């Protein structure tokens, strides 16, 4: 029975980081399943999941990664999963919505919105923000399956939030964005 590990790495960005990390995994007989990476202000962060033979330990993997020659030391954290998770749904759940937030930049926008989500038991699946000409834009992909209120009430509360925060907050179903941005129909 294979074991699955979740590995997160942060480092100053340079060419070859992913090749080095996945090389270390490959030499331990690991099989990379999923990987996400992003670069912000010259720093790379990645998260990946890989499966290994049962005798490979967290420590073996840490040692292998720490032997990689690199200018800036990798900050690594590894989590071993007790049970190998089944394949995740590739399609987001039916109740997936996109929330957009726009307004003049100020401290606390991300916290305010994410706190609102937390208070309504809304899970954030994806989040991207941009700052341009002092205008702050957030786009969040949300899972409303366990939301504590219905869509209508949520809409009203977001309207109130909009009014009180000087931000334009809008919510729309994920399918709309899928059909307008992607060529294939699901």
């Amino acid at each position, binding site marked *: 029975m294979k074991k699955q590990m979740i590995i997160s790495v942060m480092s100053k960005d340079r060419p070859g980081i992913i090749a080095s990390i996945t090389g270390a995994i490959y030499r331990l007989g690991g099989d990379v399943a999923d990987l996400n990476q992003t670069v912000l202000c010259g720093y790379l962060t990645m998260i990946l999941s890989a499966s290994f033979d049962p005798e490979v330990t967290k420590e073996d993997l840490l040692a292998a990664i720490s032997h990689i020659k690199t200018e800036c030391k990798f900050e690594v954290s590894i989590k071993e999963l007790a049970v190998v998770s089944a394949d995740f749904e590739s399609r987001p759940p039916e109740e997936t919505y996109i929330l957009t937030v726009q307004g003049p930049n100020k401290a606390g926008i991300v916290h305010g919105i994410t706190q609102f989500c937390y208070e309504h038991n809304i899970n954030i699946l994806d989040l991207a923000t941009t700052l341009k000409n002092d205008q702050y834009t957030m*786009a969040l992909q949300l899972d409303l399956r366990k939301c504590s209120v219905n869509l209508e009430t949520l809409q009203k509360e977001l309207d109130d939030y909009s009014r009180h925060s000087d931000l334009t907050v809008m919510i729309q179903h994920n399918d709309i964005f899928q059909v*307008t941005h992607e060529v294939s129909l699901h």
Partner: protein
Amino acid sequence: MLRSDQILATVEMIQKENLDVRTVTMGINLLDCRGGNIDETCVKIRDKISNYAGNFVATCNAISKKYGIPVVNKRIAVTPIAFVGAGFHREDFIRLAITLDQAATAVGVDILGGFSAQVEKGMTKTDREFIASIPDALAATTKVCASINIATTQKGINMDALAMMGRTVKDLAEMTADQGGFGAAKFVVFCNQPGDNPFMAGAIHGLEEADAVLNVGVSGPGVIARALERLIHNHPQPGSLQLDELAEEIKQTTFRVTRCGELIGRAVSKALGIEFGVVDLSLAPTPTVGDSVGEIFKILGVDAIGAPGSTAILAMLNDAVKKGGIFASKTVGGLSGAFIPVMEDAMLAEAVGNGSLCLEKLEAMTCVCSVGLDMVAIPGSVDADTISAIIADEMAIGVINGKTTAARLIPVPGKEPGEHVNFGGLFGASPIMPIRNVGMSSRFIAWGGRMPAPVHSFKN
């Protein structure tokens, strides 16, 4: 991965640019509702409509709420009633219209189409009784729309039926004189009428269709106008933007608009368990400011709607809309093009008022777009034969070019050019369009018979 620029463009389109689904229209076959007499037939029709469309409006509203896109109209189209009522008389057809009106009201739809006949080659006794019933039937009902197909590319024009159309239009307007002749706004004469068009007044459930089907009409002239304005604004240098790029913008915007329509239509279809038919890609304006097809002419470079260049612009617009929409949807049908209904489009109406758009130019424009001379308010004094002759010209355009054309003319009783008529709501308002050469076509209309079908080769 979330791309906030794309996401914001879609949010703008829906929240700020009047994107809506103009109509979800349920087509219902009524051929199996024919009973032994009129009473029995009325009961069967009422039952069948209530059976299929009982949850229709509530379902549309729920799906509209889920996706945050308004479905402006919920409509029903039925089998052309002259087929359903074969052998019935004028009075029976009026009762059928009242039954349809009651059934439409009971299920809560906005409007019902299909009080119709197809007489492009010849008329039966029933067809004549049916046509005679139209003015009374529409005056006695509020939600029923009527249409007659009097011409096709395959069969030519039925000139006997054509001669009756001018009189029918006049009677409709005169019987509703207290409402500015509004009855005529619920009646349209067609050439090559499609059986799956979800737009009114010409929606029918064609004989070729399944028992019930859902067709969707998308909208979006406002969305197209704003997209073009944005593109032009982002290219301020002279020469940095050419017409093909503007056509491409229309195409891509239509793609996104159509996708939204298809999403809603298929969701309603799945929820009701009724087959999804087609998306009709027509750009349908509303009298709301910023939701005008006329505005697009000005954005694309003519300072007055109707000025030379207007026909070319409309040809490009119509084609770009089709190109974007056909790729976006699995099944496209209906009319699919740009509408230029004068009363329903504030900028077109204004162009009539200031004299830049005349009937002849409007007719030329209908050669390159769907649908035809639509919602044109004309003086109430124009005689029936002249109206028939205007319709004949429009039919000929459809016959020769192998396309759908239609005429919905409203001879507003007691009004002359310079005066206004206002129907309110989606039907809009307009100054009265002057008509030249009134009373000069009676000898032509009097011939009757048929205008033969055209040759289908040597197309020049």
